[in-house]
């Protein structure tokens, strides 16, 4: 599904070129639950952003379903991002001015989903995450775990095939973190490809593949068998 070949990402400062990613070769199949682990600054987030088409400033080839992403035009890339990817962030990044309901609805608006269909999708998601009673609250009125659930609901509202999560439990207590990871596992069982970046060892256990990233390189690629 996703195939990265020899990806480099660097910044040029005055006297030297600093590599953030160097020589990344990676293939991810549909239905995998991949965990990227490594110390801060190793390049996990950068790799996620490149996979999620949010960052196009790199060298190397990126194939998605056999199509060369790095040769695509901005518009095609934007359409691909919209269709296939959902993002989840450490700091949730809900829109503060919108209610829970409206936050979940927003990606559907950008996908021109009809009003009645939007209603049923959002209602289904609220139901699934037990948030029906909270649908009219604003993000600031929710706990961190609840906010992240909204974040996930929002990310999957558009039915993406790939879910990208950058430190999804970084701001949460362990109980909340556990809940979130269980949701991920369930989504993965239903067929969604998930790629998460995390520090936490215990989160990796929910996935079926572990990539160890150090200094912009993949140090280790393990298949986890449950």
């Amino acid at each position, binding site marked *: 599904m996703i195939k990265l070949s020899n990806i480099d990402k660097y910044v040029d400062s005055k006297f030297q070129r600093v590599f953030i990613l160097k020589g990344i070769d990676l293939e991810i199949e549909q239905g995998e639950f991949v965990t990227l682990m490594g110390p801060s600054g190793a390049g996990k987030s950068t790799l996620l952003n490149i996979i999620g088409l949010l*960052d196009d400033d790199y060298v190397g080839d990126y194939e998605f379903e056999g199509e060369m992403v790095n040769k695509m035009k901005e518009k095609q890339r934007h359409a691909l991002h919209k269709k296939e990817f959902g*993002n989840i962030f450490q700091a949730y990044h809900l*829109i503060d*001015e919108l209610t829970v309901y*409206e936050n979940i609805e*927003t990606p559907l608006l*950008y996908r021109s989903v009809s009003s009645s269909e939007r209603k049923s999708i959002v209602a289904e998601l609220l139901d699934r995450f037990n948030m029906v009673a909270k649908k009219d609250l604003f993000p600031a009125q929710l706990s961190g775990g609840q906010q992240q659930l909204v974040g996930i609901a929002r990310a999957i509202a558009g039915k993406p095939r790939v879910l990208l999560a950058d430190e999804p439990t970084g701001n949460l207590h362990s109980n909340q973190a556990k809940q979130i990871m269980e949701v991920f596992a369930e989504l993965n069982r239903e067929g969604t490809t998930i790629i998460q970046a995390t520090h936490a060892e215990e989160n990796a256990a929910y996935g079926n593949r572990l990539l160890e990233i150090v200094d912009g390189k993949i140090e280790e690629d393990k298949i986890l068998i449950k």
Partner: protein
Amino acid sequence: MLRNYLIIAWRNLLRNKLRAAIHILGLAIGIAACFVIYNMLSYEYGFNRDVPGYDKIFRITTVTSHGEDRWPNVGVPFPMGDAVKDEVGGVESLARIFDNANAMVGLAERPTAFGRQRHVVYTEDKYFDIFPAKWLGGNPEKALNRPNTVVLTQSSVNKYFGEISVQEALGKELIYNDSISVQVTGIIEDIKENNDLIYTDYISLSTLTSSTSARKFINAENWDNVNSASQLYVQLSHPQQLSSYETSLDQIIDKYLNNEEGWSTEFFIEPLSDLHFTVNPNHTANKFTLMGLSIMAVFILMIACMNFINLETAQAIVRAKEIGIRKTLGSSRFQLMLQFFSETLVIALLALMLALLLTEFSVHYFAEMIPADMEINYLSTGNILFLLGLVVLVTLLSAIYPALMLTGYNPVKAIKNQLKDIHQNRWGYFVRKNLTVLQFTLSIGFIIGVLVISHQLKYLANESMGFNKELVLYADTPFLDESGRNDQLKESLERLSFVKSVSLSGDILASRSLFTTTIERHKGEEIEELGIQAKNGDSLFVDTYEVPLLVGKRIENDSTEILINETFMKDLGYDFPADAIGEQLVLYGERNVEVVGVVKDFNSRSLYEQIRPLVIFYEPEYFTKINVKLQANTNLQEAKSLLDKEMKELYPEEDSGFRFFDELVANFYQSEQKLQEVLSFATVLAILISGMGLFGLSAFTIAQRTKEISIRKVLGASASQILVLISREYMVLILIAFVLAVVPTWLLLEEWLKQFAYRTPMPISLYLLAGFLAFLLCVVIVGLHSLRTINRNPSEVLKSE
């Protein structure tokens, strides 16, 4: 989608009440100003539009010049009408009029008088070909084709005869100016208010041309005399080819006018569309003023838009996170821009609502600056289109830059708050600074304008005009009064104890009217013609106004004696007043007169104009004014009512009564005072909006620097040191704005001052004062914000960071 945009727009407004209030109030003021001015423009430019053949109708006007002096006049020599009729081709219709503003009207049967009627005119049948009226009675073809007939408007009929039918009114008799008896031969509907030629009584022109004395009065044969009352309207068949008509007019000049050495006359063809801006019986509008007002309104709106851009880009970092999230959720840049535009549209629409309230308020509050008959019809198509167009324009102008800037962010960086160092933001900072400078440039420009104009007005008020305007009252007396009542009135007023002197004259000493003619000096065979301004007055005329007599004596009520002023004395070639005494001259080419005295120069018009060569002569038949000088320490109101009582006894039909001369003089500068008022108002608005902008901007930037301020405090900086640190960057901006404002305002004001013959030198100190005021404003606004931050406990700030 749109609903979602609007929801977030609305919640954003509620969340940021201060910012929203600044935006809405600022834009509302700008929109209201533009809206009012737009209505003024469409009102003033809408005059005469419903006259059929609007583009084909013209008035012929005259400019007489001598060297550098130009004497424009909306009238033409009376014989001009016939000359044009005979010698200019392509004239479809032609009508002469003789304007008789303030004519006295009375009934023939009973001694009932209606006082003076403002819009009386002598004219001929053809007038109604050019300016068609709706006839209620009488024959349009014949109503004015014989002497002593009058066509009245419906309202005049009702005024004179009460509610009577058209048939009853036809044939009734009226007396104009106590002497001209006329019969009503036609009745027309009232002329609509948006016309300049709003005459109510049309007397046949042949009434004048068939009487010998009237012919002399209107100078029916004289090509040298131009009276602004004697006007000529034409309807041209080829209005596109004005130059060929001008050629024909030049031929008339060559044929009939034998101009003296140095003198020249030109005729101009003035389109009906210009009538409203030159001289007409309705009110006149000033194009220059209208343009100035429009520019001011646009500037105010621009300042408000700049505020918007400033505050929005300053807020960019806050908004950036939302933009970033939306991008990762799949929003395209276009959709984001659309969102931003719809947010701005919400603000603009709220501003529009407030603007309508402000308009209603300002129309009442500033009624005197707005034409009296003007009404704002909020639901007219033009107004609705204008307002919607303005809202769209304001939205685009305000939102396009912030929208482009905000939506251009890289979403990854935007979400992670890594925008501080990226290129776009530095550009935003640059734009913001420039807009602040521009705002303050405009504000400082406005302040300078107000200060300088006020200064000039004060200068004019204090400048001696060469006479004493205090304790003088004047009143109108009937024209061509043969009953000797003028002298009776003079005598009875002289008997009053509080009256110092009484004088009869043709005009008051200083007024808006101007009577110019030529006087001849015979040197053997050679005749030298000199241009003069003439005033008709009796022996006490100069005494009443305390114009100093330099040498010689007063006129002894003798029509062969004249007084001259110093300027004319120099024109005659004398350096010393005494030398001019005894000079023999010829007035009107027939009357020998002798200079018996020289008076000191005085301003007989506003201080716009240089003093002209002047002659005061004695011609009691044409006296129409009575001037009274009171004793010192007289109660003015009491004196006026006693004078009015005396007047009423002799002239029961006169209703205007005595007026104060000093008030008239003050009125000379009415339009300047109006300009000053409007500009002051605009200045207050400009400062208000700019101030609000600076308030919002500094609130934001200071909030961003809270941590820095706290750290500096911990390191030992004093409050004043921090204040200087924060204000410094704004001070630099004000200084740049000041420098930018000085040059254009200097040039503009120099141009304005140039129109005054008596003007103050450019007051540099006022420029500095304006700069200082802006500086002060800035210090107060930024200082207030800074102090709040400075006074916060640093430990608290740093803990939460």
